[in-house]
């Protein structure tokens, strides 16, 4: 009965260059005019499967049957010409161009040698109206909110004639209100006969708008189900193989002395844009301060300044009472600060050095590890082996290159390095982003252990579940300020948080950010 399917992917296998089997014998079928959820935890192989479909990756084996005919998809251009469009999680838009220019990019209406700008605007307007997208096509992309950028991405795909639309975690960057709006739009597209692949790991969203769901775990397909016939409990079981642990047995915090004080901190980025705006807060030992917020609201700049990677700021930062203005990165680290960086591959590790070599970059000067000139190689090898064991890093041995490990294991190496100094302060920036559930849970438990041991923790995370379940105090960052700060995390709803994240609500007087005035 293959006629009823617009697309069949059969027995897809994809192995990456580092030996990771991302897809193992995965099959996916799409019925015309359905919203099909591809469900799975981070690292389950959803993105890889979609990259194969969109021609970014070549499968090692398996078949793709499009509209009843077997085909190979060689490149994204090829995929687009075959009517497949993809909206990436991280938008592929040119910020300095207008919405219309972005939509027509690569398929511009020409007037001789030149782009016919008037026609471009008309075309963009026409397609926006056709699909009922309320967008000002003459606005610059850098000036429009995230939700609208996503609409532009969808329009871009539709303009290129996409029948099958892949949406990679479209709601990850959206506030709850924007998500509602997106869903209305998707339902309209479905009614028009478009087929949509909706990648997500949010069960309630899938229940709301998807017809069928294919569930993936650990590179394998766990089957395809009618969404109306499967409970969210069962979905989550298939997804993670056990009940999701969303709540930790968290002891009430035992607060110690103030470890970190920030006063009127103001930071501009390299382009001179104000990113952190007169921020003041305190952090005590024994607590986790969660910072939620839509990406780009100053979180990265705040973290880089606290860790002395960025040295141009006004205001004051004190670690255990000492001003860090003159400190280098090493100076701050010597004050016993551990830092899990936002992007593990660009700044968290050196992929072509071994696990052992990656584990001591912050502490090799410790007399336990080195003399005046030489490293104590034997001690380091032994310590590395211990840490690999303690942090459950899956590897052949500590001499293996870090770049060969999976994301979760790389992250464990980084966490092992940062925690093994016995930190007083831990700055954890997206500590579990894009890693498997097991590793994520392990890292979260570790964070709690350190907090219980009296460590002060700042947790910046896009994973609301994570900040909700770990934080003792929860701040929302919006345009360089805390738009809200909650001391009773349990009483906050996701809905409320969304309003603060979007800047719809804003508390001018924050209670509890600063301990002493």
């Amino acid at each position, binding site marked *: 009965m293959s006629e009823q399917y617009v697309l069949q992917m059969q027995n897809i296998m994809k*192995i990456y*260059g*580092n*030996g*990771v*089997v991302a897809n*193992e014998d995965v099959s996916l079928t799409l019925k015309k005019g359905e919203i099909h959820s591809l469900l799975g935890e981070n690292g389950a192989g959803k993105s890889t499967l979609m990259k194969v479909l969109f021609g970014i990756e070549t499968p*090692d084996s398996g078949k793709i049957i499009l509209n009843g005919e077997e085909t190979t998809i060689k490149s994204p251009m090829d995929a687009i010409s075959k009517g497949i469009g993809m909206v990436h999680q991280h938008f592929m838009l040119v910020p300095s161009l207008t919405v219309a220019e972005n939509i027509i990019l690569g398929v511009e209406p020409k007037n001789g040698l030149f782009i016919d700008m008037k026609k471009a605007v008309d075309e963009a307007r026409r397609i926006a109206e056709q699909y009922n997208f309320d967008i000002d096509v003459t606005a610059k992309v850098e000036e429009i909110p995230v939700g609208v950028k996503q609409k532009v991405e969808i329009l871009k795909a539709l303009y290129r004639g996409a029948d099958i639309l892949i949406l990679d975690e479209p709601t990850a960057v959206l506030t709850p209100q924007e998500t509602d709006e997106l869903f209305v739009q998707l339902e309209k597209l479905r009614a028009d006969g478009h087929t949509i692949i909706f990648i997500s790991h949010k069960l309630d969203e899938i229940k709301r708008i998807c017809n069928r769901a294919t569930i993936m775990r650990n590179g394998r397909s766990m089957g395809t189900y009618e969404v109306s016939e499967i409970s969210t409990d069962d979905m989550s079981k298939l997804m993670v193989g056990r009940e999701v642990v969303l709540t930790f047995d968290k002891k009430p915090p035992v607060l110690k002395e103030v470890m970190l004080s920030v006063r009127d901190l103001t930071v501009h980025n390299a382009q001179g844009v104000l990113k952190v705006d007169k921020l003041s807060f305190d952090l005590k030992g024994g607590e986790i301060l969660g910072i939620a917020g839509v990406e780009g609201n100053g979180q990265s700049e705040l973290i880089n300044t606290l*860790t002395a*990677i960025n040295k141009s700021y006004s205001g004051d930062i004190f670690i255990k009472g000492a001003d860090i203005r003159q400190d*280098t*990165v*090493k*100076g*701050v*680290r010597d004050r016993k600060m551990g*830092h899990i*960086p936002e992007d593990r591959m*660009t*700044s*968290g*590790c*050196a*992929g*072509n*050095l071994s696990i052992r*070599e990656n584990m*001591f*970059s*912050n502490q*090799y*000067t410790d007399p336990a590890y*080195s003399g005046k*000139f*030489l*490293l104590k*190689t034997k001690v380091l090898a032994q310590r590395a082996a211990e840490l690999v064991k303690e942090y459950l890093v899956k590897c*052949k041995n500590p001499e*293996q*290159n870090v770049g*060969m490990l999976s994301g979760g294991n790389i992250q464990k190496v980084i966490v092992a390095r940062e925690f093994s100094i016995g930190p007083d302060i831990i700055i954890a920036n997206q500590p579990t982003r894009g890693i498997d559930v097991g590793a994520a849970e392990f890292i979260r438990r570790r964070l709690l252990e350190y907090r219980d041991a009296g460590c002060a923790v700042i947790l910046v995370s896009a994973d609301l579940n994570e900040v909700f379940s770990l934080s003792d105090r929860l701040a929302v960052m919006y345009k360089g300020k805390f738009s809200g700060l909650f001391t009773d995390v349990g009483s906050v709803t996701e809905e409320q948080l969304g309003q603060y994240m979007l800047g719809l609500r804003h508390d001018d007087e924050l209670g509890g950010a600063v301990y002493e005035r």
Partner: protein
Amino acid sequence: MNAEKRFEIFRLFFSILIALLVSFALIFMVSKQPVAAIVALITGPFKSSRNLANVVEAMIPLIFTGTGVCIMFAANQINLASEGAFHLGGLVAAAFALKLALPAGIAPAVCLILAAAAGAFFTALPAILKIKTGASEMVASLMINYISLWFCTFILMHFILDPAAGAASYSLPKTAKLPTLFSGTRIHFGLIIALAVAVLGYVFLYRSKIGYELRIAGSNKQFAEYSGIDIVKVILISQLVGGAVAGLGGGVEILSPIYSRFTWTSLLGYGWDAIVICTLAKKDPLKTPLAALFLAYLRTGASIMARTTDVTLEVVQITQGVIILLAVAEQFLSKTKHRIIAREAKAALQKEGGA
């Protein structure tokens, strides 16, 4: 050994094989006696103990510059000034040997230390330019080699020239020369220094704190910054040490029994060869003697071939070029690599399934 490492070794040998085949093809094209030429190239170095000694003599300077380049490249500083540093080291050692007239024993040591210092100073110039002005060390170091060449020629012509000997300095005093190790050959004490440099280079790069910093900064600068490593210090030290080793090599070469006077009026190419050595040795100084041996063997074979047949030396330059191109081309054989890794991963899967 894992599949990745095995593959790297396989790829290296495959590159060398292809390079040799290309050379053979060329020899067949240009020569009237191709078989004799190839036989001379391959077996020539083994034909006599003198030829074998020539191989060892030729590898000594290559170990020095190769180790120096390993240290600079490990910090991801593509400083090509070891050519000029080698040259300057040779001049400095020769000039001080002539002018200081120190007693035997002390003389070579002092001259070599000064040669190393000159080399360090020289390669530091592009490093300082990079730190202060952001100028690419690659371009600056490439051009600066000519300054070294003409500066050395100037000193030769105006300060140490023997008017009776053409473009050559006065005869270097016996007290400053390095002793030979085996009578009847010109294999000299420099071999021991070279091997020591390779071992110390390894210790520096892979066992010391600064070497660790240097390799971290070399493989991911942002990671180094985030870890609190002083990158400016690393850039400077890697190039000071690399240049010192190259300068020392120049000094050793000029004080060896191969030369009796300073006669260098053109660049000798040991700095360029060092890049081949570094590539073959995968930036590991301990492996530079092996890589140097291979290149010296090829060189010696080629010169025997040139002497005994109608094929010229340049054929080996082509071999060398092809090896470099293939060895540094990451994508070369990448499909085979993927197949090997995929096969291993599949095997692991089956093992898991079976267990």
